[in-house]
């Protein structure tokens, strides 16, 4: 009798716990969920998922614009740390993206998947719900861009059918939706699949099945390095960016003693390695390497350490939240070095997050500043017109701009592949893009030995008075 009672209370406690987790899952999964085809979860796995939401959501909360946004996701990729670190070392020594050896041919089985005479099926994934839902703009803008292309007659007589699914920003879910899109929806290629951990989770699957992925929405150098035949990176990767940023500090801003403040994960280390490499090459002293954990809140000791190092220049390889906090902590102790920030922190919210202590800091960007009202670059004007006409509900900011730029690469590749479209011909067509400047991205080049599309950034300086970053340089291209 006592035994049965004990069991009953165990049941009760378990059910209350599961109920809470389940409700949390429901809440996290609510909102305008485009993923109607995600398999219905049963109670127990749902509870597990909820726990996963709670644990993986940490990096998701950092919302930066456009290109920089996806970079925040690096924090979610501890599993990939080793591979990534290996890739980083290679890249650091070789420059950026070249890989020796002949390109392997694509797996040809079903390589016309998703292509008929009248239609091409293109897929994507990214969070449309849950804590990282803000990134959802990217896929919705791409959808609008393809609608525009279709309304103008499509590509080589074919209309684009765009399938994008909500993975809730969880790598395990990404695997499920990608497999489903490849095998059931017969997706021909992917564009702008979002997140570092998410990309790493499906990378092998896509490569093995020869499914192209154009312009993944992440900045890790691992996307293009080592070269993977069907994968084409667009945005300037962290490694290249960090190199350009530290060269700029040394050459144009007169840095002598440099300190680095970086996130203790593959994203941060990628930046740190590049910065240390440049300092060595230029004979500058690295006086401090101060790391932080993604969960840290009290940055007093970090600030103190940076100040005590005597650095005249501090480079921050950190995501927006901690960046805002450390900028305040530095200002609190009256430390005023030259500050350079990773493009991940290039977000208007930083002005408030840092209580305007960001004033005067430098940062870079790989996309033109679409939020600058004085920017009359015809490409930017075209982008604004497009948003007004085809995606009026979306904010014409960084997220939208990156989705737009990514979709343009996809369309250009499809155009170049011509009427006889196969995965093989598509990849070959992309590899013919050389210094292509018709899209929103500054300059895109692919070749059989290089799948890193853009290798340049321009510099901006934060102005608290104007409450935005002001462009201070032209695009600077990476040369090893």
């Amino acid at each position, binding site marked *: 009798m006592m035994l049965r009672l004990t069991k009953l209370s165990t049941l009760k*406690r378990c059910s209350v716990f599961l109920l809470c987790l389940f*409700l949390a899952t429901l*809440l996290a999964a609510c909102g305008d969920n485009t993923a109607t085809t995600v398999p219905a979860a049963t109670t127990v796995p749902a509870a597990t998922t909820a726990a996963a939401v709670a644990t993986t959501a940490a990096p998701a*909360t950092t*919302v930066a614009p456009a290109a920089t946004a996806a970079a925040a996701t690096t924090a979610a990729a501890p599993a990939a740390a080793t591979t990534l670190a290996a890739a980083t070392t290679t890249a650091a020594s070789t420059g950026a993206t070249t890989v020796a050896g002949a390109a392997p041919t694509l797996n040809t089985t079903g390589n016309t998947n998703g292509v008929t005479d009248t239609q091409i099926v293109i897929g994507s994934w990214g969070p449309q719900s849950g804590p990282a839902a803000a990134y959802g703009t990217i896929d919705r803008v791409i959808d609008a861009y393809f609608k525009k292309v279709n309304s103008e007659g499509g590509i080589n007589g074919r209309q684009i059918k765009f399938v994008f699914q909500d993975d809730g920003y969880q790598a395990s879910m990404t695997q499920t939706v990608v497999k489903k899109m490849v095998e059931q929806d017969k997706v021909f290629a992917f564009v702008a699949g979002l997140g570092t951990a998410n990309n790493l989770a499906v990378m092998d699957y896509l490569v093995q099945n020869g499914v192209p992925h154009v312009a993944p929405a992440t900045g890790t150098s691992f996307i293009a390095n080592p070269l993977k035949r069907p994968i084409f990176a667009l945005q300037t990767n962290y490694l290249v960016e960090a190199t350009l940023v530290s060269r700029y500090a040394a050459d144009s801003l007169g840095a002598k003693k440099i300190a680095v403040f970086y996130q203790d994960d593959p994203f941060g280390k990628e930046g740190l390695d590049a910065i240390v490499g440049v300092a060595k090459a230029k004979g500058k002293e690295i006086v401090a390497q101060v790391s932080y*954990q993604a969960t840290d*809140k009290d940055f007093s000791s970090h600030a103190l*350490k940076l100040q005590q190092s005597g650095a005249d220049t501090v480079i921050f390889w950190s995501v927006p939240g901690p960046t805002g906090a450390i900028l305040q902590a530095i200002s609190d102790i009256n430390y005023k070095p030259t500050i350079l920030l990773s493009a991940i922190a290039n977000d208007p919210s930083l002005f*408030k997050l840092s*209580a305007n202590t960001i004033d005067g800091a430098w940062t870079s960007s790989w996309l033109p500043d679409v939020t600058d009202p004085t920017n009359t670059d015809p490409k930017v004007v075209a982008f604004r017109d497009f948003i007004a006409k085809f995606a009026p509900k979306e904010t014409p900011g960084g997220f939208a701009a990156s989705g737009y730029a990514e979709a343009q690469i996809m369309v250009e590749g499809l155009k170049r592949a011509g009427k006889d479209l196969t995965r093989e011909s598509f990849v070959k067509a992309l590899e013919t893009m050389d210094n292509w400047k018709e899209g929103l991205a500054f300059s895109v080049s692919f070749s059989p030995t290089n799948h890193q599309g853009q290798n340049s950034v321009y510099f901006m300086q934060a102005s608290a008075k104007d409450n935005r970053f002001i462009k201070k340089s032209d695009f600077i291209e990476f040369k090893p």
Partner: protein
Amino acid sequence: MTALAIWATTTQPPLSVVSQATGQPFSWTIFLQSVINGISFGSIYALLAMGIVLIYKSSDVVNFAQGQMAMFLTYIAYSGMGLILGINFLQPHADLPARVGWGVFLGAIALSLVVAALMGMAIEKFMLRPLARSSVLSQVLATIGAGTLLYGLVSWIWKAEIRPFPRFEAVAGRPVQLGTPPDSIIITLEAINFLVVGLILSFLLYLFFRFTMVGTALRAMAQNAFAARLMGINVGRLNGLAWALSLMLSAIAGVLAGPRLQLEPNMMTDVGVKAFAAAVLGGMTSLPGALLGGLVIGIIDNLAGYYLGNGLQASIAFLIIILVLVIRPNGLLGKTIRKKV
């Protein structure tokens, strides 16, 4: 052992000590600055830790969701500011001002306190009271569940974007500088505010427990719930009161620390762990212990971060929890933990 070693090197540093992490000779100014910075955040840990202790003392439940509850209440305060200023606070890029004055600040705190009190009583009544006859473990699990639920709720209502939290005008001024650079110590008004509020609140709590009938009844209930019921004390209602008080402390902590922590669903994750460490260090049953524990954790955190490297800083709280549980389970000021009848 490690913690003892840290303690030894940080309290009585021989003059020849060279920090491994910074490679610089020991300086008392830096040491003092670290301690002051530690006290600043430590006061926030202390407020949350006192909340954890209040609940544990009254009902034997370890509230693992103190951090998430504080996070939720900070969002409430933020929304209160939005309401008062007539700004749509649900919008991800809500344009709240960087600084707010007395009226908005106090209004937001008031709203947050009211919600905290109601929420505390509701949690006790609808979540823990039905579980009163199940094991303590199941009640603890329920608090974890509630935390996860709040996390989801906040991500859903306010979205997960990181938002700046408005500063309280009165403490946003220039920091106080003692001495001349480079040998100067800097104290921000905000840090002073954290400590002063922390001390005032603990003093008020002391008065409440010592000199009011309800406070005495809470203490009595913590000692012997059965006898308390025989005195005509409504144990359920008092537990609800303990929860309400606990969450009100957390609400104040959230509003104070909001500008430093920035508003996001994870804003209190780290703070919650450190507060728990502070409560354990203070012996779980002692309010002054929790206050002291919070300050000590904040200081150790900063000293370890500076002298041993920031990689260790994140795990130092866990180290302290484990060490205290192994070496001195009753904490700094705790008495022998008695099992209730």
